[in-house]
């Protein structure tokens, strides 16, 4: 039995059938874009669900200053166990950043994207940010450049951004309503004054929207990030999604709030919770009707290095870089080769999927009883394969399999955040947390799994499965779904909630 993979349907086929018209997998997500934009983003690890398994990215932390305060950020915080935006261990000068980028590009030839994301706001540090971009455009022309910003200083930076051929800008937009904004941003620094409350939020929102319009008018791609804060902007973000799409943003990325008391943030200390995986998903699905959604975002640190979901920053600290001797000319040649290989592989896979799509027929089991959708968690270290040991996985990719096919839903981190309490580093509790994070999944696919976690997962109603090791993720999910259906284990009445009860 063959299941079509929704994320890989050709544009013509995906328009009508799938209710969530931007399901999140790359093909579907990107197929809605005009050809020129799709060509720009399809090999970008942050935007393309299949490219992120192959191409790597890095952030350089050259921008320490910020011009606003967000309630989810604490400028004092710097913990190397922690992985979230705005957090870094080592601040770089533009010169150091250029050197680091070139060293990483030589050591990790699949590195294709350099971003400046903080730890403050890149555009509040225009000299450092633009000097880095200026030099990299000249010295490493094959690397794509990106920047993310809170938007306050965006309108005044658009000319300079356009000059450096930066084709992707990410703006974090959490609201359109200043009253909501005042509950997220206590102050902004604007025209030589600190401006508090609703007035400050109003200025920020105005600048963000103006910057968005200016960028899209110049043909610079804009992605919008939003932090989902339950009870504050969760419902409002549907409106944000509609508006930013109308203004030309090509992708909307709704991310969960990260707030723990030990981070010392306003939200952390006042007990503001983040959304559950289910709440996040529901909002992403609700926004998807209006906007291309991004679901594989890993909320990388401002100094992250490597494939999405991994961080090799430790290998490239300043003192280590100093000792590395790089022949940059040769490295460029190797990079071009490696990239050509990856692009060929990706294109072959994309073509293969398109062919499979044309060949596929309505599913034999569609419409029969016993074919409810299920969620499957996958341990993968890249290449789009089920290829990671359960115990080594720091995140799981969650897919939904149904009679409509297989679609990617989200990446769930399990032990990436330093909880800072007595659970920190404890193997037992990491397993507990993994099980909790995957509680809505019925199967977990991995290359191998130990005896003890096997038993614990089964006891929690999640079936471990190592029989699809090294297979393509979507194909493996489809196969598992088919097996469960054949065994009569997908009766519509027996849903996850019933089983858990």
């Amino acid at each position, binding site marked *: 039995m063959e299941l079509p993979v929704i994320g890989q349907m050709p544009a013509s086929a995906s328009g009508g059938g799938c209710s969530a018209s931007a399901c999140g997998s790359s093909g579907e997500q990107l197929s809605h874009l005009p050809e020129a934009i799709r060509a720009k983003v399809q090999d970008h690890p942050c935007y393309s669900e299949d490219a992120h398994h192959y191409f790597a990215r890095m952030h350089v932390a050259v921008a*320490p*200053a*910020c*011009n606003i*305060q967000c*309630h989810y950020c604490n*400028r*004092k915080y710097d913990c190397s166990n922690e992985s979230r935006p705005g957090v870094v261990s080592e*601040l770089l000068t533009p010169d150091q950043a250029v050197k680091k980028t070139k060293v990483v590009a030589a050591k990790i030839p699949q590195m294709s994207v350099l971003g400046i994301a903080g730890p*403050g706001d890149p555009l*509040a*540090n225009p*000299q450092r940010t633009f000097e880095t971009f200026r030099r990299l455009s000249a010295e490493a022309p094959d690397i794509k450049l990106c920047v993310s910003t809170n938007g306050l200083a965006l309108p005044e930076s658009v000319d300079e951004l356009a000059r450096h051929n930066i084709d992707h800008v990410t703006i974090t937009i959490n609201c359109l309503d200043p009253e909501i904004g005042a509950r997220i941003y*206590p*102050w902004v*620094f604007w025209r*030589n*004054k*600190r401006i508090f409350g609703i007035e400050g939020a109003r200025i920020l929102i105005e600048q963000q929207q103006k910057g968005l319009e200016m960028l899209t008018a110049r043909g610079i791609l804009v992605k919008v990030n939003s932090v989902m804060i339950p009870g504050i902007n969760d419902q409002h973000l549907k409106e944000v999604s509609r508006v930013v799409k109308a203004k030309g943003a090509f992708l909307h990325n709704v991310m969960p709030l990260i707030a723990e*008391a*030990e981070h*010392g943030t*306003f939200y952390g*200390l*006042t007990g503001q919770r983040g959304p559950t995986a289910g709440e996040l998903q529901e909002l992403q699905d609700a926004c998807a009707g209006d906007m291309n959604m991004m679901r594989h975002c890993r909320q990388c640190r401002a100094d992250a290095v490597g494939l999405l979901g991994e961080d090799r920053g430790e290998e490239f600290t300043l003192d280590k870089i100093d000792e590395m001797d790089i022949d940059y000319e040769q490295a460029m040649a190797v990079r071009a080769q490696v990239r050509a290989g990856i692009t060929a592989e990706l294109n072959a896979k994309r073509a293969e999927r398109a062919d499979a799509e044309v060949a596929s027929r309505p599913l034999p089991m569609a419409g029969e009883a016993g074919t409810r959708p299920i969620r499957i968690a996958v341990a993968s270290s890249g290449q789009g394969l089920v290829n990671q040991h359960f115990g080594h996985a720091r995140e799981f990719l969650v897919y939904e399999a149904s009679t409509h096919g297989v679609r990617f839903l989200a990446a769930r981190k399990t032990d990436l955040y330093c909880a*800072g*309490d*007595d*659970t*920190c*580093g*404890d193997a037992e509790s990491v397993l507990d947390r993994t099980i909790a994070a995957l509680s809505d999944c019925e199967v977990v696919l991995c290359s191998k799994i130990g005896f003890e976690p096997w038993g614990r997962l089964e006891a929690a109603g999640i079936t471990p499965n190592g029989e699809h090791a090294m297979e393509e993720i979507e194909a493996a999910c489809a196969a598992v779904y088919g097996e469960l259906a054949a065994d009569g284990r997908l009766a519509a009445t027996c849903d996850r909630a019933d089983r858990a009860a």
Partner: protein
Amino acid sequence: MAFEIIETCVNCWACEPLCPNQAIVESRPHFKIVADRCTECIGDHDDPQCASICPIEGAIVDEFGEPLNPPGSLTGIPLEMAMSLLEKARRAQSRGETAA
């Protein structure tokens, strides 16, 4: 008459480019204000620039040692809450270390 940056400064660079007198210098363990050059922005700006962008409550003080941004004024976190919650987190952490 001059402001001073004290040890709670996190070296974020936000103030440095704003000073109309180039009185702020990078320094370790934290940035410093060269007292001779600081005019508290009088004549240049309505508000002192360093203290208007500094994100850290208490990090910049006046000549009497009074913070220009007192606790609670920037983050909105009431001081007592911040202290008691941080204390709780610290206790939980040390319990964890003992258990391990």
